[in-house]
């Protein structure tokens, strides 16, 4: 740093060229002093003596607002005045650079100089010049300088020098701000690099975990896929053991499953001696496995759960070799054990299975138990269905028998009702007048009468002879009267005597059929056979005239005639006239 005192001549006595040289040197020194990389606050602190020295100023102060932080530096000011700007410096900056103004770009410094500044209440007493600098992006600076020691105001050259110094400060502040930004960016970048490294590590670990989980899930999926189509518990045991050995890299293994009763045991083994299976299904094997459950005490797996056997002594007590073993419990009293032996890695220590393998084993066994439980449920359902089908057949048979019996009962009931109705009707018919009974009685009477008549010597003709005999010769009543008068014909009344007595043709001879022989012998036996015989007497019920006429003809009478109309026709002719 140079000062006017260091120069051979006083400033007031310097020539123009010397002053310019002095000012250039001052600018050079200021540029050199501010060229070092420093923080803006340090630059401000370094700038004040560099600017005040060449000009011979009594005091100076600077207020820097950078990244929201306010820096106050002063030189030559009394402490109270310096403290004043620590409190109101921000207002002074905002007076030159309002908060609501648009972000300013870096610009040349603005210098205010004059007598009026010395009385500005916002500035220290005697302030001769104020410089406002804007570096853009929220970095502003306000510089104030007191009067010269010589008490004279700043001339134009000095003002230009001050402007140049302010420009140097502006550039330095810009550079410092940029450097600070670069530093911040570097710091941020380093921090981010660290974060990125950490994230990369975590990502790698997550990828590895994901791979393991994917492997486990694939193993679970493939195991499930193998067992899903198997419905026989034995097949599931075999398929699961094979899958488990492949997944966990064991060359041998076995699974034993024991039911609630003796003799209910199933076992499969692979990569072991054939006698292992017999050992597992034997009562000894059953007792050895179930004893492990007892040894677990309160850790006995409950239904559909499993637990790994970590204790090597417990594994040794199992009925077959097991470098890794699992005890599991199904529902309905089924329990079992899984043993894996001879790992491909050849290791035989207690930590054979890491945490992932143990978790995978747990998941596989859990899946196995679900599948096995489903298979057993399916078996149970099949058995129930078979039993139900058998019962349905029995029920159908019973139903058919009941239906048949019901039909038979219905038929018998109808027959009974019919019989009862028939009996009841027949019995009731006894106590009432029945057309059937009446007809039967009349039919019986007719039958007996006809049969008796046919068998009796004194039987009568069912059909009257007069109905079947040739029709007799009939004459009119008038002709009969003429024959009786002219030919001395004999009139015969064939009716019973009582009717004859009631009325008859005059001179008629009563000759009833029942007294025929007697009356004929008494009255007509001497009669000439040629004499006409005029017979009458018939009604709706009997033809007396025809019957008697037939007997007379049998006795030889040649002219037997029947009077048509009988007594009524004769009487209808009226009284006979005298000849």
């Amino acid at each position, binding site marked *: 740093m140079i000062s006017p005192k260091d120069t051979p001549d006083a400033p007031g006595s310097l020539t123009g060229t010397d002053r310019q040289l002095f000012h250039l040197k001052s600018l050079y020194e200021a540029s050199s002093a501010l060229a070092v990389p420093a923080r803006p606050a340090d630059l401000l602190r370094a700038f004040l003596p560099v600017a005040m020295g060449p000009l011979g100023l009594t005091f100076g102060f600077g207020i820097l607002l950078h990244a929201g932080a306010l820096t106050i530096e002063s030189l030559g000011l009394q402490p109270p005045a310096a403290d004043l700007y620590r409190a109101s410096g921000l207002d002074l900056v905002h007076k030159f650079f309002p908060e609501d103004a648009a972000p300013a770009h870096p610009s040349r410094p603005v210098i205010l100089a004059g007598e009026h500044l010395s009385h500005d209440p916002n500035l220290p007493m005697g302030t001769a010049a104020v410089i406002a600098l804007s570096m853009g992006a929220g970095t502003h600076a306000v510089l104030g300088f007191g009067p010269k020691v010589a008490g004279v105001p700043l001339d134009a050259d000095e003002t230009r020098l001050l402007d140049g110094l302010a420009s140097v400060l502006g550039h330095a502040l810009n550079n410092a701000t940029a450097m600070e930004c670069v530093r911040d960016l570097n710091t941020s970048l380093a921090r981010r690099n660290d974060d990125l490294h950490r994230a990369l590590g975590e990502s790698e670990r997550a990828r590895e975990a994901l791979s393991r989980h994917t492997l486990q899930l694939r193993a679970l999926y493939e195991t499930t896929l193998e067992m899903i189509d198997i419905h026989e518990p034995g097949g599931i045991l075999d398929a699961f053991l094979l899958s488990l050995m492949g997944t966990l890299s064991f060359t041998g293994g076995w699974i034993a499953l024991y039911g609630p009763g003796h003799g209910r045991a199933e076992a499969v083994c692979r990569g072991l001696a054939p006698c292992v299976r017999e050992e597992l299904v034997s009562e000894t094997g059953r007792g050895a496995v179930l004893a492990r459950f007892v040894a677990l005490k309160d850790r006995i797996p409950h239904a559909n759960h499993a637990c790994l056997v970590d204790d090597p002594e417990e594994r040794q007590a199992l009925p077959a070799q097991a470098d890794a073993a699992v005890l599991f419990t199904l529902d309905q009293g089924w329990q079992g054990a899984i043993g894996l032996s001879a790992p491909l890695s050849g290791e035989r220590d207690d930590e054979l299975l890491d945490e992932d393998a143990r978790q995978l084993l747990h998941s596989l066994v859990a899946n196995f138990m679900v599948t096995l439980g489903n298979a057993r449920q399916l078996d149970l359902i099949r058995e129930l269905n078979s039993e139900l089908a058998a019962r349905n057949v029995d029920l159908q048979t019973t139903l058919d028998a009941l239906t048949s019996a019901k039909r038979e009962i219905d038929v018998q009931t109808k027959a009974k*009702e019919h019989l*009862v*109705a028939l*009996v*009841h009707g027949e*019995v*009731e018919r*006894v*106590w*009432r*007048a*029945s057309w059937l*009974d*009446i007809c039967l*009685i*009349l039919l*019986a*009477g*007719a039958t*007996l*009468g*006809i049969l*008796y*008549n046919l068998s*009796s010597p*004194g*039987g*009568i*003709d*069912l*059909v*009257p002879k*007069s*109905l079947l005999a040739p029709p007799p010769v009939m004459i009119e009543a008038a002709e009969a009267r003429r024959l009786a008068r002219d030919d001395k014909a004999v009139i015969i009344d064939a009716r*019973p005597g*009582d*009717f004859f*007595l*009631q009325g008859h043709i005059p001179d008629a001879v009563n000759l009833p059929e*029942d007294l025929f022989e007697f009356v004929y012998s008494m009255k007509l036996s001497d009669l000439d056979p040629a004499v006409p015989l005029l017979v009458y007497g018939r*009604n*709706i*019920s*009997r*033809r007396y005239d025809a019957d008697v006429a037939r007997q007379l003809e049998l006795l030889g009478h040649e002219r037997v005639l029947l009077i048509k109309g009988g007594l009524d026709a004769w009487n209808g002719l009226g009284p006979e006239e005298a000849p």
Partner: protein
Amino acid sequence: MTAAIRALLTSPWLALAFRLYLGGLFVYAAMYKINYAAEFSTTIASYRLIPYWAVNVMALVMPWTEIICGAMLLLGVRVKSVTVIIGGLLSVFTLAIFINLLRNAPISCGCFHTLEDPISWWTVLRDLTWIGMTVHVHYFDSVLQTDQLFLGKLRRIHT
């Protein structure tokens, strides 16, 4: 008094007496007619109500019907149906006598024998009495019936 008379008139025992009387009467009446069918045929013809071609058949059937009905009355078999037949026969007889009384026909009844007194209004009254007995038997007879003896228990069967 009235109840006693009613009880007497509706007594099954009185009906039994009428039934036995009528049964014996018809058996007795039929015996002669069966043995002398020709005479009975003449008697039927004397009533002048039956066509001449049916007289002989009736003379054969009627006595046997009477003797069957009489026997069934005596035994107590199908009493109601028998009383219907007997009532019908007595009604026919009464109607025939009544008609011939109006005709003033000089005939006998012919109920028991061929030779009997001529029919009269007393004959009608007698037949009406027998019809009354038949009606009584039809409605009130219920004791000492062979049907009751053999079929009485079956009557208690209900459908």
